[in-house]
C-alpha cells in the first residue's frame, strides 16, 4: 500500500530512506529501538547537523538501532490518514509506536504543533499521562529544551544539553530496567538522577493569583531541585561521525558540515544560543582537516560549510581556511564561508571562494545606532562596517546585506532611524570611490529587519516584547525613512515572532493552547504559507490563555520564571547584572578579552581556562 501512496505524493523520495550512510541493522538483534524525529519536512531535518551527529552516535552502540522519522508533508499526511497508515521510520518502515524511545529534536518553537501531529499520526497518546506501559517513551532534546515547559505535558523526558554526554548512561539504565522487568516509573526514577535528564512529571507547579508561578516543587525526595545542562569538555576527544547521511533527493543544504567549535565568546544580550552553549570549546584545526577529508570522501559532496556561532572568532581560522582551500579548490569542492569580519585576509579568502561572492557581504549590526548596539552588547561599530565596505567596494564587491532587529529594549525612533542612516552611509561610501573604478556596477544594500523575541536565559528574559501593532508601526517608520533607491528593505511579519514570543517564555499551562491550536489545524507553523495567526488566536481564546501575559509583560527580577529549575551554568545574578548594564548602555567584554565570571567556569573547560 505504501508503494501506491508514494506514487500519489509530491517528492516521494522524502519517505524512502536508503540514503548513503544509512545504518542497516537487524532490529530483532538490538535491545533498544530509538526513533529520532525531526518535526519538520525531510529536506529541512536532513540538513541539520545535530541529527547527523546523534544518529551515528546512538548507532555506534551495537545494542541500539536509531532510525529516523520526519513530519510528512500535507499530501502525504492526507494519504496516510486516508489509508490508516501510521507514521513509520525510514530505515525499516516500522511504525513509531513500536519503538522504545521516540525522540524529538526541538529546534524552534514553531515546530511544536508538528510534534503533536507526529505523535497523533503514530497513534501514540499525545499527553504523557494517557500513555501506557507499552507506549514508547517520548524524549525531547535541542535548544528549546532550555525552557521545555509548554511541552511538559506531552513529554516523558527532556534531555538538557549536548547529546554525547548522557545518552549512554540513559540507554544503559533503560536496558537494565527492562531486563529487570521494571516499570516505566522505575526507569524514570533512575533516569532523573542522570546528569542533564529532566522528568517533567516529577514536579508540581503552583500559581499566584496574578498568574505568575508561586512554587515549583519536586514531587518525590529522589528528584533533584534543578537540572543542569551537560556539555562535552573536550571536543577533540568526543565522538564525531566520519560519514554523513547523504540524501537521495535535494535538501536545503547538501554539503559537508564541519562544526569548528561550540559556544560563542560574544555575549550579545539578546542571544540565547550565545549563553546556553557557553563556554566556547574549540576543536583543533588539524583534527578538523582530517575529519573533513573523511567526510568529503565518504559523502561525495562538492561543498564544505563551516558551521558554528560566529565562526570568524575561531582562533585557528586562518590555518583551517587555508588548509581547506589548498586541499579542495582544485577538486571542484567549494567552501562556503560564514560571515566574517571584513579585513584584508578575509576579503582575499572570500575572493578565492566563489560561493560567497554571489551572495555578497553580510553584516549583522542588529541595531541601527551605536547606543542601542551598546545596550544589546553587539560589539560591532559603524566605523568597522564602513571600513569593511570600503575595502570590499574597492575589491569589486557591490552587494551588502545588513541584519537588524526591531523592538529591542530601550529602542527609540532615533535608533530605528539609524537603520536607514547606516544603509545610507554605506551607499555613500560606494559613491566615494572614483567613478572609473566603479565599473558602472550598481550597488545594492539590503537591510533586513527581524522582530525581537525575548528568550529565556538571556539578559532580556524579563523584557516585554512589542505587540504586533507596535512592530508594524516600527517597520513602517523604518521603511518610510529609507529614501535611496539602492537600499532594499525587508521585514519579517510580526505575527509569527509574536507567537514565538509566547511559546519561548511559556509555562506548563500553554500545553492546552498548543493542543487546541493543533486541533484547530495548526501545523508547519514555521512555513509562512501554512501559518495562520487567527487559528492561534482562536486557540488562545478557547483555552482562556492570554498571549499578552507571556509575550508583552515586563517581569520583575524576583518572579519565579518557568525555566528557573533548569541551569545552564550561567548564574541568574549575572543575567541581572547584564540587564542592568544594558539599561546603563555599558558593554561587557567578550570572553577572550576578559572573563566576566558568568558562572560557567565551573564546567572546567573551554575559553574560561584558555
Amino acid at each position: 500500500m505504501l508503494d501506491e501512496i508514494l506514487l500519489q505524493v509530491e517528492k516521494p523520495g522524502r519517505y524512502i530512506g536508503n540514503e548513503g550512510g544509512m545504518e542497516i541493522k537487524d532490529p530483532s538483534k538490538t535491545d533498544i529501538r530509538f526513533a529520532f524525529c525531526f518535526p519538520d519536512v525531510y529536506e529541512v531535518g536532513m540538513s541539520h547537523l545535530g541529527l547527523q551527529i546523534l544518529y551515528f552516535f546512538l548507532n555506534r552502540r551495537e545494542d541500539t538501532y536509531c532510525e529516523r522519522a520526519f513530519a510528512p508533508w500535507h499530501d502525504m499526511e492526507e494519504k496516510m490518514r486516508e489509508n490508516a497508515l501510521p507514521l513509520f521510520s525510514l530505515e525499516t518502515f516500522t511504525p513509531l509506536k513500536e519503538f522504545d524511545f521516540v525522540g524529538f529534536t526541538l529546534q524552534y518553537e514553531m515546530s511544536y504543533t508538528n510534534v503533536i501531529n507526529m505523535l497523533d499520526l503514530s497513534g501514540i497518546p499525545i499527553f504523557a499521562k494517557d500513555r501506557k506501559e507499552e507506549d514508547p517513551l517520548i524524549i525531547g532534546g535541542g535548544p528549546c529544551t532550555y525552557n521545555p515547559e509548554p511541552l511538559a505535558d506531552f513529554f516523558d523526558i527532556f534531555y538538557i544539553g549536548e547529546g554525547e554526554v548522557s545518552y549512554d548512561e540513559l540507554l544503559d539504565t533503560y536496558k537494565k530496567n527492562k531486563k529487570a522487568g521494571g516499570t516505566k516509573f522505575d526507569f524514570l526514577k533512575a533516569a532523573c538522577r542522570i546528569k542533564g535528564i529532566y522528568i517533567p512529571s516529577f514536579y508540581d507547579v503552583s500559581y499566584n493569583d496574578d498568574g505568575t508561578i508561586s512554587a515549583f516543587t519536586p514531587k518525590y525526595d529522589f528528584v533533584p531541585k534543578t537540572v543542569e545542562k551537560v556539555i562535552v569538555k573536550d571536543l577533540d576527544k568526543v565522538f564525531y561521525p566520519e560519514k554523513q547521511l547523504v540524501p537521495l533527493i535535494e535538501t536545503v543544504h547538501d554539503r559537508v558540515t564541519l562544526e569548528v567549535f561550540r559556544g560563542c565568546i560574544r555575549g550579545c544580550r539578546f542571544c540565547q544560543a550565545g549563553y546556553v552553549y557557553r563556554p566556547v570549546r574549540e576543536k583543533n584545526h588539524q583534527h578538523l582537516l582530517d575529519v573533513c577529508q573523511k567526510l568529503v570522501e565518504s559523502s561525495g559532496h562538492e561543498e564544505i560549510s563551516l558551521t558554528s556561532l560566529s565562526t570568524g572568532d575561531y582562533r585557528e581560522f586562518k590555518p583551517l581556511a587555508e588548509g581547506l582551500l589548498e586541499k579542495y579548490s582544485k577538486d571542484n569542492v567549494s567552501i562556503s564561508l560564514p560571515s566574517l569580519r571584513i579585513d584584508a585576509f578575509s576579503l582575499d579568502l572570500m575572493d578565492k571562494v566563489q560561493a560567497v561572492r554571489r551572495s555578497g557581504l553580510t553584516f549583522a549590526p542588529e541595531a541601527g545606532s551605536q547606543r542601542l548596539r551598546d545596550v544589546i552588547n553587539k560589539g560591532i561599530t559603524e566605523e568597522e562596517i564602513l571600513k569593511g565596505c570600503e575595502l570590499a567596494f574597492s575589491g569589486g564587491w557591490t552587494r551588502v546585506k545588513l541584519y537588524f532587529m526591531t523592538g529591542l529594549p530601550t529602542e527609540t525612533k532615533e535608533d530605528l532611524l539609524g537603520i536607514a542612516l547606516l544603509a545610507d552611509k554605506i551607499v555613500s561610501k560606494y559613491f566615494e570611490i572614483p567613478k572609473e573604478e566603479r565599473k558602472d556596477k550598481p550597488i545594492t544594500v539590503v537591510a533586513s529587519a527581524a522582530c525581537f523575541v525575548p528568550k529565556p536565559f538571556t539578559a532580556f528574559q524579563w523584557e516585554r516584547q512589542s505587540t504586533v501593532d507596535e512592530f508594524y508601526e516600527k517597520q513602517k517608520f523604518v521603511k518610510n525613512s529609507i529614501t535611496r533607491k539602492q537600499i532594499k528593505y525587508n521585514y519579517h511579519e510580526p505575527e509569527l515572532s509574536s507567537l514565538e514570543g509566547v511559546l519561548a517564555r511559556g509555562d506548563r499551562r500553554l500545553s492546552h493552547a498548543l493542543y487546541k491550536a493543533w486541533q484547530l489545524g495548526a501545523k508547519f507553523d514555521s512555513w509562512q504559507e501554512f501559518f495562520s495567526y487567527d487559528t492561534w488566536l482562536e486557540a488562545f481564546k478557547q483555552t482562556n490563555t492570554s498571549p499578552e501575559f507571556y509575550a508583552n509583560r515586563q517581569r520583575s527580577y524576583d518572579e519565579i520564571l518557568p525555566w528557573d529549575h533548569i541551569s545552564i551554568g550561567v548564574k541568574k545574578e549575572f543575567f541581572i547584572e547584564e540587564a542592568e548594564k544594558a539599561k546603563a548602555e555599558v558593554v561587557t567584554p567578550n570572553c577572550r578579552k576578559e572573563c566576566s565570571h558568568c558562572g560557567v567556569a565551573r564546567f572546567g573547560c573551554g575559553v574560561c581556562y584558555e
Partner: protein
Amino acid sequence: MNENEKFVPLRPEDIKKYRLKFEKNQKLIYIGHLDLLKLFQRSVKRGKLPIEYSKGFNPHQLMVFAIPLPLGMESGAEYIDIRLTEDVPPETIVSSLNAVFPQGIRILEARKISFSQNCAADVHSADYTVILPHTGFEDIIEEINKSESIQIERTVKKRVKQTEIRPYIKKLSIEGNTLKTTLVTGSQGNLKPDDLLKYIYKCKGLEYIPYKVKIKREEMYADTEGSVKL
C-alpha cells in the same frame, strides 16, 4: 586561459568514454531523474573514479543518460555514458560504483566505447513489461497489432494534438495481466508506455489509474526494431 597553455585539439583516442548499464528498482524508483544524476555525481566521487569535468566557469562532470526514467518506473536496463581522464578497467568501474550505491541501484556492466558514441543519441527503442490491475485486454491488443493507424490525443505545450502512434509500437503482446511491448524511444521519436496504456484503457472503457500499474523498462536498443542492444 593561461597564455602558454595553447589550445590542443583532443584526438579521438584521448577520449576515454565508458557506457554503463544499470538497474533501478525497489525504493529507488521513487527518486526522479535529477536526483539520480546527483546520485551518480556523488557516487563517482565516492568511488574515486577519475571523472572528466567540462571546462569553463561552472565545471560539471561529463556524463549523459540515454533517456530519463520516469519516477515510479522500475528498470532493468538504464544506460549512462561517462568520460574519464584515464583508462580504468570496466570491472573496476562496476565494482567501485556498486560499493557506494544504495540498495536499489546497481551497475550491471561497463564497456569502453568510441568517442563518437552517445547513448542519448544512440537509443532508438525500448522493451517494457507492464503489470496491469485488470485482465481481458487480448482483443484490443490484437486489434492494435492488426491496425495500420492509431490516433491518440496528446497535450503538447498546453494544446491537445492528434498524434499517430502506430509506427511507434514495434511489438505488443499480452498474457493475463502482463503486457509486453517494444516502443520507439529516444530523441528521434518517442512513445511513452503511459500513452499507450491510456489508449488501451480508453478502448476498454475503463479508467486508467497510473499508480495502480507497474511498469518496468527491460532493455534499450540502438535500432527501432529492438534487436541491437545499446
